[in-house]
């Protein structure tokens, strides 16, 4: 695990990674337009250009929007592994692996419910998703 790639973090995205360490998936959202949440983080709204943006905690719920099962090598990963795009309840997409789930098409149904979890990687926690456990909302 420890040789998996580490993100290079910048001042504009520090809050996101700090939030992940506390088990929170944080999103920027615009307060100037009805653009709502957006991803990836940046200190202005990509829809209207306003700097009047805030940070909100995502519900952590999402659905499997699309994926591939990669047989290509990647440091710290054992192929085949799933590379997915998750549609968050807040209407933004983000990349993830799918944890606690076999990397085969039978186990990965598009639009299946997912929930956020966090993977320890070095000093960081990496937001990840896994099949929803059906627990309380």
């Amino acid at each position: 695990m420890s040789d998996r790639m580490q993100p290079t973090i910048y001042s504009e995205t520090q809050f996101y990674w700090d939030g992940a360490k506390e088990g929170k998936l944080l999103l920027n959202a615009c307060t100037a337009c009805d653009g709502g949440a957006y991803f990836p983080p940046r200190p202005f709204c990509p829809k209207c250009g306003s700097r009047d943006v805030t940070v909100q905690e995502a519900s952590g719920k999402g659905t499997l929007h699309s994926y591939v099962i990669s047989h290509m090598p990647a440091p710290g990963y054992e192929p085949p592994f799933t590379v997915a795009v998750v549609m968050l309840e807040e209407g933004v997409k983000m990349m993830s692996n799918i944890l606690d789930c076999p990397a085969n098409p039978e186990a990965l149904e598009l639009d299946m419910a997912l929930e956020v979890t966090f993977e320890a990687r070095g000093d960081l926690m990496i937001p990840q998703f896994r099949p929803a456990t059906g627990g309380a909302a």
Partner: protein
Amino acid sequence: MTKASIAIVGAAETTRMGKVPELSQTGLHADAALNAMAECGLTPADIDGIATAGHDSAEIAQYLGITPTWQDSTSIGGCSFILHVRHAAAAIATGLCKTVLITHGESGRSNNRAHRPLFPSMQQQEFEAIYGPLFPPSRFTLPVLRKMKDDGLTLEQLAMVAVVQREWASRHPRATAHDPITVDDVLSAKMIAWPFTKLMCCLVSDGGGALILTSAERAQDFPTKPVYLRGMGGESCEGPMVSQMEDFTSSKAFRVSGKAAFESAGISHSDVDHLMIYDAFAHLPVYGLEDLGFVAKGEGGAFIAEGNTRPGGRLPLNTNGGGLSYMHSGMYGMYALQEGVRQMRGLSPAQVEGAKLSVVHGVGGMFSGAATVVLTSEDQW
């Protein structure tokens, strides 16, 4: 009547393609450039504009001994050279230069180079690469399962893209892969990134290509049959994070670029005799056919599977065999242009009889960018 204003008077690929271990990457640029200059009787002293991608244009200019008054190193990925045609046309039309050389060379297979032509993105690194999709086969393909579910695209239709293009490649002596393949062959090939097998992914080759453009009024001064630009083409970008593509079933960059090219040329889809759509992977011709408006959304896969784009079909597509069967150095756009030019010269080994209008459309990065040009054998329309 509109008279053509820009002509392609030189077009050539490297002397050899596929495995070319004896040439460096800059050597591939030079081999193609020298071949293109030779066929139209020019030397480096005659070139006053230069464009390339993956290298700084200054590096290629110095290597070839060219002193330009106009240069363009725009690198938006594999379709950069298609975009360069458009930029060069604008430069010639506005008098910034007279004779433009566009070069491509890539030692994709032998790796005889100091660096890969990479297109790094800070946000892609921070929010995508950390999940392990480090190579095009596991990034470019990410939207496809969504398209299959939403638009009814099937695995068999994707496989047919490779099957049909192999039929075209079998007519091209320079194509890397000639032997016929079946849908079963494609689906049972080595899995690379589900649902993509090896035969749905491009080749990895060494090679290069070069084009020489000038004003249409000078075209008759050259020994080659001129190929004219109709309209000024189109370009756009959506960005290097495939996860942030607005709609996984359609490329915004394709739609914007294609619309601009068609409007500028003043053509409709029924005018198009020949089509090239950059195919790094089997889904790209499907997206291209739909996003350029040749078929309705969701119909691209069936259109190919039904044989419309194969030899003898009504819309010949990727007649060199494409990146899947002809060659793919990494930035394939130059080879799509070369086949478009060959078809408009009437000299392709897979010639479409009587073809007068060719659309060449390319993708950059992983649905990151797009460029489109319209080529024609006619000097007025």
